[in-house]
């Protein structure tokens, strides 16, 4: 790269995707007929033309160095004519048009230490967020949680162990939920458990009072005109941290009391059942870095009970809906607490208005 800056351009948008499509993709674009899973690391898509496109998928930690990317591009240059793609869950996909090429590619990837898998009914990569690596709002780390979860469930990624259906994990480091926590099979979200601390001087300088007040889901914030700041009714605050997003002078993080909550049963696709929101199952686990053993154990417990109980193709939320939440709590032995009972905007819809339930 030369030292003089080239001429900047604006509003050009992303480059045209067409130039990045591997030839077999470009040729069969929109004309695929079916696909077959060869393993949990490899699948083949067959075109109306009879052409085949083999995909090999490798895990990525998402937070990657340029070295990692250069390694990938080298692999793509060697096997795939320099083409590669990423998935919506941050895995890397290499596409080739011939079975032998695919096998060679797979071997090379394995030899280079890549973890292959994520195709089919697996635990694929975790949708996640910034955490302590980059965000001011984080109540927990994200990358660390992803790492320990994927270590724990590596066999479910590679396909060594099977599952009734896909199990989609997500991690969000705060209740802004930049991850897909609110619609995931099993997910974890960072939470606080103490109200924000008000720095009146700073509020005055840095914050817009009306939008700070409006940010509070429970209406706990009111103006404090004397101090040109705000007041927080502590017994109405449920520590969501939204006010802190809007006003930096309301720090809420608190190492003693921050941690994570586990939610389960969400899904996105409309197959079989409508998309579902995740539901709270463990209101709090402490932050126990670097490996959060309580979190991995909790996920393991839930996964095991699901695996044993679910029917083929049944997603976690569908299984719970079939057996009922009372059974879910009984089977997982997770204690049911006041925190589980909704008291927010649609609470009434969650109260059991029926005499039909299981003991």
């Amino acid at each position, binding site marked *: 790269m030369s030292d003089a800056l080239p001429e900047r351009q604006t509003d050009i948008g992303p480059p045209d995707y067409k130039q990045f499509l591997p030839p077999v993709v470009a040729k069969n674009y929109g004309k695929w007929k079916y696909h077959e899973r060869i393993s949990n690391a490899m699948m083949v898509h067959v075109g109306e033309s009879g052409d085949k496109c083999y995909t090999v998928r490798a895990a990525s930690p998402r937070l990657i160095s340029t070295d990692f990317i250069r390694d990938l591009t080298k692999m793509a240059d060697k096997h795939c004519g320099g083409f590669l793609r990423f998935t919506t869950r941050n895995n890397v996909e290499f596409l080739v048009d011939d079975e032998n090429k695919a096998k060679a590619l797979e071997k090379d990837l394995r030899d280079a230490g890549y973890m292959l898998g994520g195709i089919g009914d697996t635990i694929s990569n975790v949708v996640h967020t910034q955490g302590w690596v980059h965000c*001011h709002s984080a109540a927990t780390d994200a990358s660390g949680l992803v*790492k320990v979860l994927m270590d724990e469930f590596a066999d479910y990624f590679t396909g060594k162990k099977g599952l009734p259906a896909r199990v989609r994990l997500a991690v969000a480091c705060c209740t802004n939920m930049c991850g897909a926590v609110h619609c995931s099979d099993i997910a974890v979200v960072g939470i606080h458990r103490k109200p924000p601390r008000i720095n009146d001087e700073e509020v005055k300088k840095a914050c817009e009072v009306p939008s700070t007040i409006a940010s509070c889901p429970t209406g706990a914030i009111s103006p404090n005109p004397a101090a040109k700041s705000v007041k927080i009714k502590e017994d109405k605050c449920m520590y969501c941290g939204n006010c802190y997003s809007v006003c930096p002078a309301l720090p809420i993080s608190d190492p003693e009391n921050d941690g994570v909550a586990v939610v389960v049963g969400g899904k996105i696709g409309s197959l079989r059942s409508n998309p579902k929101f995740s539901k709270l199952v463990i209101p709090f686990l402490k932050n126990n870095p670097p490996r959060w053993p309580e979190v991995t154990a909790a996920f393991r417990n839930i996964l095991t009970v699901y695996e044993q109980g679910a029917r083929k193709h049944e997603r976690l939320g569908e299984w719970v809906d079939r057996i009922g939440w009372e059974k879910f709590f009984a089977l997982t032995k997770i204690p049911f607490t006041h925190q589980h009972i909704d008291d927010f905007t649609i609470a009434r819809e969650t109260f059991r208005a029926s005499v039909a339930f299981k003991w």
Partner: protein
Amino acid sequence: MSKKTYATPLLDQLEKGPFPSFVTEIKRAAKRSDASNDLLGILERCYNDKKTHWKHGGIVGVRGYGGGVIGRYSDVPEEYPGCAHFHTVRVNQTSGFFYTSKALNDICDVWDKYGSGLTNLHGSTGDLVLLGTNTDALEPIFAELSSRGWDLGGSGSAMRTPSCCVGPARCEWSMIDTLDINHELTQAFQDELHRPAFPYKFKIKTAGCGVDCIASVARADLSLVGTWKGDIQIDQAEVANYAKAGMNIQAEIVDMCPTGCISYDGKAIKIDNANCSRCMHCIAKMTKALRPGKERGATILVGAKAPFVIGALMSHVIVPFMPLEPPYDNLKDLITKMWEWWDEHGKNRERIGELIVRRGMREFLEHMELDPIPQMVFEPRRDPFYFWTEDELK
């Protein structure tokens, strides 16, 4: 600057185990980058303190744009000067996340020169995220990238970087050209993407079918999802093959069809298409035997978002079927119209889904000139509390 060496006993434990390690990645970058080196130090400290050491970002960016960079500063700048500034540059990814080696290497070159050497491929919204640089480097980075054909993605109260599933590029079920739609929308709304002028963020995600591999229904203010009209195409010979291969068609397909519209007599499958809700289950599980019907288009849904302030929302149907062919003017008009209404009525930090809840579907639909239809709701209202216009009373 002479490099500090940090002991990272906590982070080191995250280099163990089968899954590739982000700590290893930071260490690799740290070899060349002070910023990444100091990131190691500050991150170990976060792990130790069990809290973040990042502060709210101020407004930083590139000339002429109001977004695309997330400003970030550490709260212990003296101790980790390399990442005192640690801004993120959101680079607008390609449709479907397809790249060539050349393209990625170009970006790596720029980033190694001006940034931490660390990235996210990709961010949750879809951007190619360049993680950690300082304010001074922003203009050079932008010049280098844009001259090579890359532009920034969105941030702030703007249209955010649209994204889509792999769609027709490598999926037999895609009923719309997700990549092209995504690209065209991104290009058509460059101004809305780069210069925040909305009440809040606006995300667009395009999925080729109801399987929704891009999570559009959960994570986009505007969700475009491919679908079809007409009968599901059945290849009975392949049905027989599935049975032969050991599939329990009754249990896995017939009994799992949510509308109960499939029957199977041990030989052939029959589908009562008038009662099919196009959920995609049978097609997804018997991809060689079943294919969507022939008339293709998209269902348009609106309003998904994360839980603040009134609880998470998923997108809901506003147009059950819209043919989507280039140049997608029908879609672009729809979007523009939607923004008009939101712009006019949305409060600061109010997503369009929240606005619809606050002001009611009627006002939204009337503005959109869309007629109410039952497909827009799971069920009609319960209570008899509704409005009448003077016109309706006549």
